[in-house]
């Protein structure tokens, strides 16, 4: 995967341009992290406020490398049967029933228990073999022949035990299945872990990863993002919009609007045919930006002032 795409990832700048061509506008830090992850073959731990494009980064990287994206959403109580592998127990049961009848044929003519057992041994352990293995996301990522992009989403939601279980995968790209032995990656996958920081991750996990913090984008980058996502929007409105959002982020709110909300808002304004941000429109569409009633109540009386700042330049 890495070698095939050598020309697309030979420097952070190239990666940045490639991402831009795919409609993902990123900062230097993000491009550098992808560059390092590809070349050092290390997982990236992506942190940052919700809605700044953590998951999107993994998706776009998989587009960039034209590798399949394998996504695993973490939640409390996630265990290895759901993340790694499970035995196809239905198939196993069916086969035992079927083979019971065959057993007589195999054993025919065997003298004494010893000989029967040694004949049985010749068959090997068929029930715990690849045939009966049901791969889950992690195993799938290791077995993808040409390398995959593995996204382990919201790792902080999973339990600490699960985190420990990931360590072998993250450092050596292999996992142990007791019945089969160690499964090594055919081609090392590129791993993204995202976290919203609802709890502190263990040092062991952090040590194995590159650390990338994605903050809210700067005004210039946010404008570029909107241009890429909602190209129909006129420049003046785009400018006002970004200024307004950036003012909002400076207020002390329960949840400040992230990039995804900005894009939603821009789409909504386009749909409503708004070409100049005014008090009435902002008031009616505020619930797209703010997700708490408390926040909306706090912002409403301030709209006038915020607008004054936002429309100053235009």
């Amino acid at each position, binding site marked *: 995967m890495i070698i095939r795409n050598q020309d697309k990832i030979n420097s952070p700048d190239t990666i940045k341009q490639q991402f831009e061509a795919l409609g993902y506008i990123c900062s230097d830090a993000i491009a*550098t*992290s992808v560059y*390092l992850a590809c070349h050092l073959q290390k997982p990236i731990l992506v942190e940052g406020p919700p809605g700044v494009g953590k998951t999107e980064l993994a998706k776009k990287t998989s587009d960039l490398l034209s590798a399949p994206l394998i996504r695993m959403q973490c939640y409390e109580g996630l265990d290895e049967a759901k993340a790694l592998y499970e035995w196809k*127990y239905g198939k196993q*049961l069916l086969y*035992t029933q079927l083979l019971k009848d065959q057993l007589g044929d195999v054993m025919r003519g065997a003298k004494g228990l010893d000989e029967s057992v040694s004949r049985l041994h010749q068959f090997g352990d068929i029930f715990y073999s690849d045939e009966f293995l049901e791969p889950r996301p992690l195993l799938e990522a290791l077995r993808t022949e040409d390398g995959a992009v593995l996204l382990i989403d919201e790792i902080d939601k999973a*339990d600490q035990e699960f985190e420990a279980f990931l360590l072998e995968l993250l450092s050596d790209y292999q996992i142990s299945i007791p019945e089969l032995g160690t499964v090594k990656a055919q081609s090392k996958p590129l791993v993204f872990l995202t976290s919203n920081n609802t709890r502190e991750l263990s040092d062991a996990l952090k040590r194995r990863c*590159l650390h990338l*913090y994605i903050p809210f984008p700067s005004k210039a980058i946010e404008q570029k993002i909107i241009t890429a996502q909602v190209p129909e929007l006129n420049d003046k409105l785009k400018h006002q919009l970004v200024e307004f959002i950036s003012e909002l982020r400076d207020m002390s709110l329960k949840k400040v609007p992230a990039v995804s909300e900005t894009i939603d808002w821009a789409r909504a304004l386009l749909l409503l045919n708004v070409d100049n941000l005014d008090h009435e429109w902002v008031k009616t569409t505020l619930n797209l930006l703010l997700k708490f009633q408390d926040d909306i109540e706090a912002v409403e009386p301030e709209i006038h002032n915020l607008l004054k700042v936002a429309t100053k330049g235009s």
Partner: protein
Amino acid sequence: MQKVLGDFIHALRQAGLPISSAETLDGLRAAQLVGIDNAPLLKQSLGMTLAKCLENRLIFDQIFDQYFNSHSQFNTGDRATSETDANQAATARLSEPFSEAVNSLESPLAQQLINGDMAGMQVMIASAAGASGAQEVTFMTQVPMVSYRVMQALGDGALQQELAAMAEREESSAILSILQQRRARLQQQVRDYLEQQYLVLNQNEPNKRREGNLQKISLTSIDQRNYKLMGELVRQAAKRLASMHSRRRRITRRGLLDVRRTITANAAYDGFLFHTKWKSTRIERPKVMVLCDVSGSVSKVARFLLLFLYSLQDVLPNVRSFVFSSYMAEVTKLFEEQDMEQGLAEVLHNWGNKPTNYGKALSDFETMALADIDNRTTVIMLGDARNNNEDGNIALWEEIYRRSQRVLWLNPEGQVNWDSGDSIMSKYAAYCSHVETCNSLRDLNRILGSVLKHEA
């Protein structure tokens, strides 16, 4: 490059970043990959491999700037040389009549000084400093001694002998004065270099020592200026405790049968179900109620108890906080809404420094929260049990003890002072699962650590 990066990582560790040797290797590989010419790229790459949270990243950025600015003089040897060009010309002019004398200079250091190769000199200083233990300078006062050693390593002994000889001969006084002047400048350079190294490597060392001491020091004797640092430590401690213990799952032996897993586990027995697997895993989250005495008698420690209370509520999901002196109030909401400084100030203003009445406070607690105490609740009392000879309402305390899973009393006074004066500790102690003296941050850590561990 390895040496420079190694020193840089040493500086980072001094500043408190936990960098393992595996991460050091990662850093080196990253630096090799991106090269060291592009400073912003190098900074980002190293930052990603060495600093693993936002807080550490900020420290990293600061130290990176400091460190590589002090080192950049090696990389920009050109500028240093051009500055000395004028000097060199002067030397050339001067030394022409004395060229013989210049050539006859014996000690290598003297020749270098005359040649005026500043960039080369800097590199030599750095390597000599490394060899004579500049890294181990832990006090500013060690700088002169080490700078003497560095000068010796540079060959100052031979130079001085030669200078003495020249002074006796009296023939080459012009060269002599130039050499002496340059030697003085070299000495100054060495000292500057060492001091800079000391600052980069050690500026956080005193802090570290102070933190270590603060952990042990008793809460009553901490002075005002350490409040801030202490607050940070308390917060760290609470966070550590919470992340270690806040989520603990227990697999129960009852509940719904997990059919899939049961059949899987029993496939080997021809589908006969020997081993049962159950679906429900109960998630245990400690429910904690903390009562904090903020009255006059504990005024000195109240701030820290509150600080801990605040931090605990910040990191544990199910904490209810109460403060009291003569009557009790719940401050859970207040702590949620206000930031730390404001919240503490408001609590101390409203409820602090009043006479204590445990009986009255407990009956307030009865109306507010007694009904919510169940057999999974831990009640923690932070207070000195000095009741101003009022009725302690022991029966109510017994009721709390009976209802809850565990009752903990942390007394900031030493055990010798219990039951002295108006303290009625032993009456309450009868109805507590643990009674402990809690007089320093280390105590607090130890006690709560063990409490939360036994929770599961």
